[in-house]
């Protein structure tokens, strides 16, 4: 049987506010355990939550960016359960009326663009963390994170493959960073993903029974976890067995999902409106102000890059997936004489590869757009060839100086003197009688051999067009 995969994602995004959602405690990551746990964070008797409006501002920003309905009146609710890292015994969240309603995000797929629906995005507070290491068999609780603002973004079950899920996730990740509402750091837990996965026979309208996979903390793991889960479900169904509705945990070390709790064991969270917090009412001016402050969004920027710079959609998508990368490209193309397409190739090619290899972010790059522009201009003005430029780039990356300094100190300036090139060509042809004969016999391929020999003699500095031209002239004689 042919199976169709159905995926919906729930993404928890930590919002970049200075203080917590319901108290004045700091949200900074990495402090000593419990040093950022104020009276409210540890839920002392008698303390009360007070809404940090900045969190609402960031949530609205997200809602507006995905064209979602913003609820002018939203309601905080208590989600009740016991766990040591949940100090109040309930999490303040939103249940019936979330701040952000229906919206959509466009993703790229191999079959072209596709719209993924967003069911809702609601505000809530993060829990603390349990610590099990170096505590002599006891567990510790760190409540620094307790009360950090989150939005939980719930998608419609619109994705049909792990690849689409990853594409959606990347799009969302790029968007929250563009908007400046989250640092999106997956290692530190600022961007967390749970996946609802089910399968159904192709053509069937009804959804299959889903499993919710928790604890997936990288793009790569999302793909692996979903693929593992889909295979598991197919095996079950093809074995005439059943998928049961349950929560499963992804174990990245073993690359498998395993059952955490079944539907029967599922918590009854006993949601009810939090009587400590009146409904949050946002006025039009508040929303209008946020709308005005929205930056150009990745999708809009991608379309503009295609139109303005004549880039293909794929490259434009890659460039705009990261705001800083797109900014770098825009500066570069404005400063250099090469075409935007060549500039784009450099950014997505050598530059991105170097960033990946050195594991540094574009924001920490040492070669400024202006410095790279100079290098590209040296290709344009024929001081060096494209190939030599890569060598110069590597030297620049290693901090050996500016493009011009490196070209000079390494003597990489291109040989463009026709007489000089002619004499080298003549010399090579004289030394390669056999190959010349082959060429004359009609073997065109051998021309590559001549070029190689010439480049060897000039250390790659001979202008390739001139070499070609002169070579063909001489051979044609």
């Amino acid at each position, binding site marked *: 049987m042919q199976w169709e995969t159905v995926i919906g994602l729930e993404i928890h995004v930590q919002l970049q506010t200075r203080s917590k959602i319901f108290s004045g405690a700091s949200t900074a990551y990495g402090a000593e355990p419990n040093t950022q746990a104020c*009276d409210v964070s540890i*839920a002392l*008797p008698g303390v009360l939550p*007070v809404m940090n409006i900045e969190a609402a501002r960031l949530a609205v920003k997200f809602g507006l960016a995905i064209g979602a309905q913003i609820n002018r009146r939203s309601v905080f609710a208590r989600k009740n359960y016991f766990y*040591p890292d949940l100090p109040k015994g309930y999490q303040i969240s939103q249940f019936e009326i979330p701040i952000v309603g229906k919206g959509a995000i466009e993703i790229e797929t191999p079959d072209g663009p596709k719209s993924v629906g967003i069911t809702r995005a609601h505000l809530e507070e993060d829990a603390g963390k349990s610590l099990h290491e170096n505590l002599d068999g006891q567990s510790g*609780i760190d409540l620094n994170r307790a009360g950090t603002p989150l939005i939980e973004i719930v998608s419609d079950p619109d994705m049909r493959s792990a690849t689409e899920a990853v594409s959606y996730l990347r799009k969302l990740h790029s968007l929250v960073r563009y908007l400046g509402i989250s640092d999106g750091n997956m290692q530190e837990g600022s961007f967390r993903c749970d996946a609802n996965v089910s399968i159904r026979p192709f053509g069937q309208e009804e959804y299959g029974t889903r499993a919710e996979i928790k604890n997936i903390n990288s793009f790569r793991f999302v793909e692996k976890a979903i693929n593992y889960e889909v295979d598991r479900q197919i095996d079950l169904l093809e074995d005439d067995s059943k998928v049961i509705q349950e929560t499963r945990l992804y174990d990245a070390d073993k690359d498998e999902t395993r059952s955490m709790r079944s539907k029967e064991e599922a918590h009854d969270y*006993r949601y009810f409106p939090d009587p*400590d*917090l009146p409904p949050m009412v946002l006025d039009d001016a508040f929303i209008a102000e946020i709308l005005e402050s929205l930056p150009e969004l990745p999708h809009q920027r991608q379309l503009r890059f295609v139109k303005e710079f004549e880039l293909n959609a794929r490259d434009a998508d890659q460039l705009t997936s990261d705001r800083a990368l797109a900014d770098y490209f825009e500066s570069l193309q404005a400063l250099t004489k090469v075409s935007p397409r060549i500039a784009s190739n450099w950014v997505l090619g050598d530059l991105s590869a170097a960033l990946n290899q050195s594991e540094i972010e574009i924001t920490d790059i040492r070669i400024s757009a202006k410095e790279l522009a100079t290098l590209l201009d040296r290709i344009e003005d024929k001081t060096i060839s494209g190939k030599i430029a890569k060598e110069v780039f590597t030297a620049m990356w290693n901090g050996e100086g500016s493009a011009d300094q490196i070209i000079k100190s390494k003597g990489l300036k291109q040989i463009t003197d026709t007489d000089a090139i002619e004499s080298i060509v003549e010399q090579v042809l004289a030394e390669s009688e056999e190959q010349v004969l082959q060429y004359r016999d009609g073997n065109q391929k051998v021309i590559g051999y001549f070029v190689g020999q010439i480049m060897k003699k000039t250390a790659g500095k001979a202008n390739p067009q001139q070499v070609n031209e002169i070579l063909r002239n001489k051979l044609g004689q």
Partner: protein
Amino acid sequence: MHQKSIAEHANSLAKGEYSSVELTEHFLKRIESNSDLNAFITVTDQLAREQATQADQLIKAGKAGLLTGIPIAQKDLLCAKGVLTTCGSRILENFISPYDATVITKLHEQGMVTLGKTNMDEFAMGSSNETSFYGPVKNPWDLERVPGGSSGGSAAAVAAMLAPVATATDTGGSIRQPAALCGLTGIKPSYGRVSRFGMVAFASSLDQAGVITRNAEDAALVLAAMSGFDPRDSTSLDVPVPDYVASLQDSIKGKVIGLPKEFFGDGVEPDVADAVQASIRELEALGAKTIEVELPNSEVGIPCYYVLAPAEASSNLSRFDGVRYGFRADEYLDLNDMYEQTRAQGFGEEVQRRIMIGTYVLSSGYYDAYYIKAQKLRRLISDDFTKAFEKCDLIAGPTAPDTAFRIGDKNDDPVAMYLNDIFTNSVNLAGLPGISVAAGMDRKNLPVGLHLIGRYLDESTILNVAHQFQRATGWHLKMPGGYE
């Protein structure tokens, strides 16, 4: 000395007739010699002496306000910095609060002197003060009887004149019913008038702090000091607090008092009904008009209250889990067992009952039938009051259906106990201000309470009427034998 009103104390302090330290020592001595009442869980004698000394300096420097140097007892539901704050529960038997409730901060800023923390029903759940882990409180009018609850310790302390005034809290009648049973004045302001920050939550949408005093003037003075917007409580109201004291002297001529026929039915003891009727006649003699009004949904007040209050309580009390502070069971097998043992041993029977009721009514499948339905009823009850207030300025009736009952009498029948609050808890459901004033004695020589309910945010009218009533009748001046 202990019989004086706050205004009289303030006058004596200003004149130097005695110092705040002397006044404080006097009350501390009375607390000690009347410890059999069990009105206090903690006596903060050291703190009191320090505060009194500071107050005396302010008085000497001519920087004193009306409340500077006046001793006060605090209900043990209010967090006080560096002081044991138990809420009458074993689960907080070792909890020293690291911070002050806003109410306490405000009173201390006025120079008031905290004598100690008063006994109460566990987490304010009870109408007799018998659910306290620290033992029942005795009613100074009859030591075999309850003082009412949950603010039973505050009421007993003020009735026995161990303190001139005590803070109290009221979720369904916990200020007004003990005030009635102890012959005192007890006011619960409108919801949102007084900050709930630092007041350990029972039912967040119903809880309000207020005061128990021996007369309306003292109540007006202290309530004014406690009231006002607090940015740390999102349900606190950012509206000006009226000058409660100034309006006390107004004539009540022409004031229209609504008498709901539902408050004068069969459930009320004849002595109570007679005393309340006589009080209403007094008010008419002072120029007030009475009319009959209807509160047709008041009969569902108790069921509505006993769904909503436990629902909120079940969630509010989840934080008492033995993890971060308070009592933790000595022995347990694993995490879940730790929760279960801690909460089974840490909470008393009534608290456990309400947590179970609350958990049940919020459970999936029952939520709509109980919680949502009760919310709808709450709206109807509130609308009844709104309608009634179109025709009257305040509403009057008995505070409780009976006078103080014997310790142990209603312990086996929770519903009979809950019915004590039949006239008070609808006022919390509607968020209105209510006051109980002493209005006579029954044939057992026990005080009867008259309940006055005001419009939303109109504490002034009920304080004014209460004050004029007290000037005319003097019932508030009666004192329990042996404590004069």
